[in-house]
């Protein structure tokens, strides 16, 4: 008999192992977790989302995604740990219990499965999707430049060979379009958190323009609290602010699209970097990374719960 608690959260895993683990998580928590398929990747892999729900009808929801850039392995691994933490803590931790009694969480752990499979089979450092680009020998689109929010502007490339190629048109990638369709059809998503690695940042809109978002002050205060609580665990220092202020202008990103489509609490994390390993962070750091991220995530989730709109 397999159980989710026999899974080694301190190791990196293949796509198949993660997808198998999702089934055991659902089997272990049938009244809380279910698995839904929101679409297919370019190479016809299922796009799975874990739904955490204690009932109700179309409750306010939070969208979480990890691993839209496939080579950022600590991100998917943190996603697995976090999903397990949510399931295990429900009914035991009062904060998580209260949260899930009122809010649904949708969690896509491997947002770019083709890229992730490719990092295991052929090129560990692959970032993009695996779609073929007409007229070019270069493969793939950067799915974090493919959203309809300033699409094609600064910080994205029109060159299919670039790591930041924005694609032929907005939502050209099925991995992106499936999320767009899901969030739009749901209609009650109140927060979106898209998780990356490895620059130790917590950012919010806008990325495609320098204008402050209408909710800048609230988003900034919440980010400040979240990174402070994250740092309290192991002293890991994060910077925070709008994407444009914190890094540079970057058009067509997930969080800008979400914000412009009515999701007020839109954040993107860049998880831990030791400064020595980059995308090759040793697996011994998976659990410390996930552990320190947890209180920051929880800050945002609780804020969403307590500030309905």
């Amino acid at each position, binding site marked *: 008999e397999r159980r989710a608690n026999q899974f080694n959260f301190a190791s990196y895993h293949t796509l198949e192992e993660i997808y198998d683990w999702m089934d055991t998580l659902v089997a272990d928590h049938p009244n809380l977790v279910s698995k839904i398929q929101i679409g297919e990747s370019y190479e016809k892999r299922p796009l799975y989302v874990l739904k955490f729900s204690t009932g109700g009808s179309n409750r306010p929801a939070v969208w979480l995604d990890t691993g839209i850039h496939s080579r950022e392995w600590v991100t998917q691994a943190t996603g697995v740990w976090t999903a397990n933490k949510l399931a295990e803590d429900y009914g035991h931790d009062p904060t998580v219990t209260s949260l899930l009694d009122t809010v649904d969480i949708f969690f896509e752990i491997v947002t770019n499965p083709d890229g992730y499979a490719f990092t295991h089979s052929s090129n560990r450092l692959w970032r993009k999707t695996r779609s073929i680009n007409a007229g070019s020998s270069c493969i793939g689109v950067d799915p974090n430049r493919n959203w309809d929010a300033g699409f094609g502007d600064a910080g994205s490339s029109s060159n299919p060979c670039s790591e930041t190629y924005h694609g032929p048109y907005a939502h050209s990638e099925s991995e992106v379009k499936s999320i767009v369709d899901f969030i739009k059809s749901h209609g009650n998503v109140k927060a979106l958190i898209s998780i990356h690695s490895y620059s130790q940042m917590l950012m919010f809109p806008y990325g495609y323009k320098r204008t402050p978002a209408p909710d800048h002050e609230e988003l900034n205060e919440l980010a400040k609290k979240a990174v402070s609580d994250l740092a309290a665990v192991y002293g890991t220092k994060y910077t925070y602010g709008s994407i444009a202020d914190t890094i540079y202008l970057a058009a067509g990103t997930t969080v800008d699209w979400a914000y412009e489509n009515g999701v007020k609490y839109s954040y993107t994390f860049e998880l831990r970097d030791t400064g020595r390993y980059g995308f090759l962070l040793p*697996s011994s750091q998976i659990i410390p990374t996930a552990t320190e991220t947890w209180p920051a995530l929880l800050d945002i989730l609780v804020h969403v719960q307590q500030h309905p709109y």
Partner: protein
Amino acid sequence: EQLFVGDQVLRVVASSEEQIALLRALGEQVELQVDFWRDPTKPGRPADLRVPFSRLQAVKIFLESHGISYSIMIEDVQQLLDEEKRTMMLSRRM
């Protein structure tokens, strides 16, 4: 399978906007095959770039000739990848 034997990741710290522009220009030189792991953003903030072994000399000369300071963050990318693979196999056996 793509191998990364001898590839290095350089941690570069630009001291001015001009140096950041130079780094971005470096990234656009297709023949150098530079892969930015962490993009150049602001003066004083690190940027990380993976450089194929065959282009290391050219990239280092570029950085040194423009007075851009750097250190080697990863000596040999493939060594780390091999270690990562070993760890995963061990975990799977357990």
